[in-house]
């Protein structure tokens, strides 16, 4: 019952988002990219991708393909006007929908963030390489036009949209978990991607006004994308360098809390760092070592009890007490009382 209702909900959401995607596609239809008769400025491409990430490959495919067909339908061209492009839109959502299977959802570490970006890159390239290929194979466009009028404009622009918009959407959906790793990289990431996007959009604008060759624009765009990816890779590695020791330190601390001191040796390499993390690791491992030593000492210190009694003193003390008249009287009375109690009992 629960799963059926869930399936119905997801189907409803996919259709709704698909319709919205279609309607916005219809609206953006006027804004073709420079040198393109077909490819437009479409920030909404992130919608099918996000559907895929949220609900899986099938949801991504349905909302992407359905939306694209709907866009043509509203425009009066009929839903099957460019079926290979509609299929490509579906695959875009589908590829992003693989996130859950490759460990890119939720994003909780730099490695899963990198996987997410690679998926978004693939989602913006493979499907459109396919649909461009179909155009070329059908002999509708020459190779040069296929590359500079279809593939590159779409690939570069959609990748940038996806890079810029999908991470914040995931953050809103709670799929981007605040860990020291993700925090370290996100600040730099947003700054970088927003700058590149702004540059890209203004380049497009300038190209349209100044009649610059589109080949130059898209070559520049491709180079920018490569530089961006290299930059991201470098910042991922350096963020990892900052956070990895913190994660190791946390794990070792957790084991120490459970009384296991054997993992402290893992901190040796971190200790050698010249920065604050190195100092922290050094202080921490010294602390653990002294705690361990103290615990060991305590364990060994007093384990056995020795009781020593001076027997001759005891005998003398005993005689002093039992020799008194009071004691003799007491003993006698106590004996009588017990005998009386016994008799009462029986």
């Amino acid at each position, binding site marked *: 019952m629960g799963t059926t209702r869930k399936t119905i909900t997801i189907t409803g959401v996919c259709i709704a988002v698909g319709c919205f995607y279609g309607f916005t596609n219809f609206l953006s239809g006027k804004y073709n990219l420079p040198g393109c008769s077909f490819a437009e400025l479409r920030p909404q491409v992130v919608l099918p991708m996000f559907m895929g990430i949220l609900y899986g490959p099938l949801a991504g495919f349905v909302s992407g393909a359905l939306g694209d067909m709907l866009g043509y339908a509203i425009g009066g061209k009929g839903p099957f006007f460019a079926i290979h492009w509609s299929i490509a839109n579906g695959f875009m959502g589908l590829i992003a929908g693989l996130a859950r299977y490759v460990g890119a959802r939720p994003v909780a570490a730099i490695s899963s963030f990198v996987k997410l970006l690679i998926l978004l890159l693939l989602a913006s390239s493979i499907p459109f390489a396919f649909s461009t290929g179909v155009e070329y194979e059908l002999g509708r466009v020459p190779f040069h036009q296929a590359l500079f009028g279809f593939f590159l404009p779409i690939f570069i622009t959609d990748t940038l949209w996806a890079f810029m918009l999908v991470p914040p959407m995931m953050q809103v959906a709670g799929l981007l978990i605040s860990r020291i790793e993700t925090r370290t990289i996100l600040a730099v990431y947003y700054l970088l991607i927003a700058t590149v996007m702004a540059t890209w959009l203004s380049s497009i604008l300038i190209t349209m006004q100044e009649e610059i060759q589109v080949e130059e624009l898209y070559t520049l765009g491709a180079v920018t994308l490569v530089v961006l990816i290299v930059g991201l890779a470098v910042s991922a590695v350096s963020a990892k360098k900052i956070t990895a020791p913190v994660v190791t330190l946390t794990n070792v601390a957790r084991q120490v809390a459970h009384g296991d001191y054997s993992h402290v040796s893992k901190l040796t390499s971190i200790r050698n760092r010249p920065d604050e993390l190195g100092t922290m690791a050094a202080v921490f491992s010294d602390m653990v070592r002294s705690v361990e030593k103290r615990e060991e000492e*305590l*364990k060994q*210190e*007093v*384990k*056995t*009890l*020795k*009781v*020593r*009694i*001076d027997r001759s*003193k*005891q005998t003398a*003390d*005993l005689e002093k*007490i*039992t020799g008194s008249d*009071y*004691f003799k009287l*007491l*003993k006698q*009375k*106590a*004996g009588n*009382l*017990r005998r009386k*109690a016994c008799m*009462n*009992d029986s």
Partner: protein
Amino acid sequence: MADIISVHSFRGGTGKSNTSANLAALYAMDGLRVGVIDTDIQSPGIHVIFGLNDDEAVYSLNDYLWGRCAIQQTACDVSYALRGTCKGAVYLIPSSVNAADIARVIHDGYDIDLLSDGFRELIQALKLDILMIDTHPGLNEETLLSIAISNVLLVVMRPDYQDYQGTGLTVEVARELEVPRMMILINKVPLTFDLEQIRWTVADTYNCPVAGVVPHSDEMMGLASHDIFAVRYADHPIVTELRLVAKILRS
């Protein structure tokens, strides 16, 4: 006949009063009717553990010993201190905290027959199953008296050199007085000790069975005799050990 259990130690501060109060509470939780008598007339204290103020009791054990009242009149029902866990009853017979009363008792002493008659009347009047006697440390005449009329003696000691000699003497004196059952309770044992080793070393040294080995507990210390430990920390390992002690003392 009800059991008269004396809790004693040669030196002060071993935990007699807290042990008496906790054992009494554990018995009452099992549905038994328990009387607790504070015969530590020189430095009374156990009433504090049961939450009784110094001026709350109308009559004390002193009043009975001086013929001012019947023994039943000195008993305060303190079952409420168990906060709903009491299936039997706990009655406390406090000692006077009045300095003049204390001085008079120390000076005059009191008679064994009077005290033992009082115990018997109390047991009958309140239909008691157990009478616990919290004693004054040392081996003065009044304490000897308490030991003499009990049929179970629990000698409390700490693993402390100051306690060893005196505990030996107490055990021998109790043997002379022919107390039917005698056991040792080792209290406030640091956690670094091997509890089993302590148990057999003590039993062997004093030739006397050990009823229990109770570790030192910061919670007990922190409670500062302001409540009954067994009520507040029912699941604490110390309470588990005391439950065993309670059982052994009556078997």
